[in-house]
């Protein structure tokens, strides 16, 4: 029925080669995973297969769909995309027409696929299938979260009952539970309709779960290809091995700092605020971000906060760090009681915060050196020598050299910038470092490297971590204790092993069940 065949396919944009010598065959019902680092060309490949190339792109070699080259005629190509191929492009959540409702997007896809009857009913059904409430159909993108938008676009890609689904990072922006739902849906459809799948992901675990064959891209070339068991079980190429070790989070080092007395205590903290962005006369009910949270962190411990989006994790982190203010309740660090923004200056240097996106957390007008040195003003007057010593210590501690200090943020890659963000967090030799989704902006290899570094830093400097994450595998590696949050409350706590082996609360059960199995340790068929 539908086959995709590439033979020595190459693509150049503006003279620069982006893909070279790509060959593979995807038959009906097969599931192929494409893995590689960011920038390897995975997404462009997806677009090339459906003829959605940017301006100035030239191709070499052959690309055939169903034994025919892609139609030249725009209308025929569009029809092909509408009826036969379901396409979910990268960053789909940002690709919605702001003036069209979610339902309108899906209805348009249905119409393009020729399913013109019962649009409303079908739209509602598809929304339910991807785990969304049917009322979403009438809402506009501006009122939806990224996860909801992502799923609407997935529904639009699937609703035309395509023979082939090309999905580029389908789990982006989804929390763990939603991810499981989406994976289940794709699996079901592949089984029931023998739908072919071309899955592009940087997460090897996802590929291992859903696909039967894998190709590995590096810098636009296929460096390894074959059955999943072969590629993941006995990787031949160095790049494949690199991806696998990065994706597999090793067991923690045994060099753990001994856990000491209580460092931070949070007592019954509530945070309520009124939404300000609505027009004047609409009724506003206050948002309860935190609803009576209590916890304590001990010196040298590494605690993780997990939970679905909106559970209050980031709000709690910002209150602890002193950026926001608790409406009720109190916190105590080092015998100093505070409520958030009234964190005394002396204690401010004991707590640091690392933000999720390093491109937003550095002032583009300053050199990274100036940004990293900024927290040093919290120190009491010291000699210049010691301060520059600190800079050296911080920068080398994260694996970079001091000559990068004079550069500006735009000169660095994402993983390097995040390291520098951690260096800035280290500069005051704090006792507690809060990391808010520290790995989310990085790809598989970047994450792996940073994780190793974080563990080493904790051991070397005797740090206490509070990590906010959705990545349960990461949490297992980095945390001594895990707190599960839902709707502003802590619903369960325990060691990672406890939580995953014998979860008590419903949410924890779901999160544990939703975690994807490891790759390479046990062969996954």
């Amino acid at each position, binding site marked *: 029925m539908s086959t995709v065949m590439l033979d020595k396919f190459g693509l150049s944009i503006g003279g620069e080669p982006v893909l070279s010598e790509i060959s593979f065959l995807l038959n009906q019902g097969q599931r192929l995973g494409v893995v590689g680092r960011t920038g390897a060309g995975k997404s462009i490949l997806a677009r090339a297969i459906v003829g959605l190339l940017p301006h100035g792109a030239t191709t070499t070699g052959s690309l055939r769909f169903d034994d025919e080259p892609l139609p030249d005629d725009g209308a025929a190509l569009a029809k092909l995309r509408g009826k036969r191929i379901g396409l979910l492009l990268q960053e789909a959540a940002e690709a919605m027409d702001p003036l069209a409702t979610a339902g309108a997007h899906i209805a348009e896809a249905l119409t393009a696929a020729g399913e013109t009857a019962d649009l409303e009913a079908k739209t509602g059904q598809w929304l339910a299938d991807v785990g969304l409430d049917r009322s979403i159909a009438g809402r506009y993108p501006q009122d939806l979260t990224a996860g909801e938008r992502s799923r609407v676009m997935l529904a639009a890609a699937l609703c035309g009952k395509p023979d082939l689904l090309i999905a580029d990072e389908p789990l982006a922006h989804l929390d763990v539970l939603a991810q499981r739902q989406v994976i289940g849906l794709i699996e079901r459809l592949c089984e029931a309709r023998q739908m072919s799948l071309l899955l592009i992901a940087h997460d090897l675990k996802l590929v291992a779960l859903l696909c039967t064959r894998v190709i590995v891209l590096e810098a636009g070339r296929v460096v390894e290809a074959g059955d999943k068991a072969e590629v993941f079980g006995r990787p031949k190429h160095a790049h494949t091995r690199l991806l696998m070790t990065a994706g597999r989070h090793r067991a923690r080092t045994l060099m753990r700092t001994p856990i000491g007395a209580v460092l931070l205590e949070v007592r019954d903290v509530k945070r309520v605020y009124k939404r*300000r962005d609505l027009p004047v006369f609409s009724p506003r009910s206050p948002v309860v971000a935190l609803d009576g949270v209590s916890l304590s962190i001990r010196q040298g411990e590494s605690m993780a906060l997990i939970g679905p989006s909106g559970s209050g994790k980031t709000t709690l982190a*910002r209150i602890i*760090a*002193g*950026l926001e203010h608790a409406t009720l309740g109190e916190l105590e660090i080092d015998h100093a009681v505070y409520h958030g923004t009234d964190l005394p*200056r002396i204690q*401010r*240097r004991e*707590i*640091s*915060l690392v*933000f999720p*996106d390093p491109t*937003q*957390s*550095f*002032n*583009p*007008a*300053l050199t990274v050196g100036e*940004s990293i040195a*900024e*927290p040093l*003003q*919290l120190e009491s007057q010291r000699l210049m020598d010691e301060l520059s010593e600190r800079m050296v210590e911080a920068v080398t501690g994260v694996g970079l050299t001091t000559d990068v200090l004079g550069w500006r943020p735009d000169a660095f890659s994402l993983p390097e910038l995040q390291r520098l963000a951690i260096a*800035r967090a280290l500069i005051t030799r704090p006792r507690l470092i809060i990391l808010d989704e520290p790995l989310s902006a990085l790809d598989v290899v970047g994450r792996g490297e940073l994780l190793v570094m974080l563990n080493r830093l904790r051991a070397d400097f005797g740090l206490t971590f509070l990590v906010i994450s959705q990545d349960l595998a990461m949490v297992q590696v980095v945390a001594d204790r895990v707190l599960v949050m839902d709707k502003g409350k802590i619903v369960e706590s325990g060691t990672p092993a406890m939580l995953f082996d014998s979860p008590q609360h419903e949410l924890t059960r779901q999160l544990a069940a939703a975690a994807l199995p490891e790759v390479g340790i046990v062969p996954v068929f």
Partner: protein
Amino acid sequence: MTDTLALLRTGRFGPSRFRIGAIATLVLLLVGFVSIVWTPYPVTSLDVGSVLQAPGGAHWLGTDQLGRDVLSLIMKGILTSFVVSAVAVFIGAVIGVPLGWMAKIWPGIPDRAIGALGEALLTFPPLLLAVILAAVAGPGVLNIMLAIGLSVAPAFLRTTRDGLVAIERLDYVAAARLAGTGRVETVRRHVLPNLSPLLLAQIFAQLATGVMAEAALGFVGLGVQPPASSLGLLLRDAQSYASVAPVPLLLGGLALIAIVLALTAAALGLRDGLPGYLRRVGDEP
């Protein structure tokens, strides 16, 4: 500011728009400044013997109906255009930026009140206010400076307010607060350097508006009064004898267009250099 300076060197498409605009503006400014100390002929010298001469010979660009040298008139006119709009933009910024700042730091009722004020001013084209001021105090330079200034103030108000809102949301501002940086210092180090390119772009854009407004007001007699010269007055006079000597009319208009284009190019070029999240700031909500 280094980003702005960087723009002087390269842009996306060859020499950056900013560079072209800035250089053109500078050239015209120079011509204007030169006229302070020297013009081919003093503008006040009426030479009734050589009225309405065509370009060439003693008068490079010809003479007007009173025998004045057109080139000198244009040079002085360019100077007037720049001076008037610069003062007007200064007034507008001095009013608009602090108001925008206040709107940002006092959200809620003061924000809305200031917004309403800005809205009211926005509906006041320079013409209206100039007319009213002229009715009250007679036509003159000061009046139109004030009039134009008040009508460009809302643009600065909105740019400042929206720009501050956009910047304060960024993580690096929060990081500065965490690092113990005081409010004032945060503003100085983090907010201002990222707000200034935005304001600078707006300054150039409003200068262009100001020049156009000054010419229009001069044309209807509300601006600079004779014997001082402005491009508007030149065009007003040129209109009356255009059927016999169209050259001054054409030249005056072209000079005006050149100034506006130069300033606009610079403004657009600056906007090109802004990071994405700041580029739309200042557009109508």
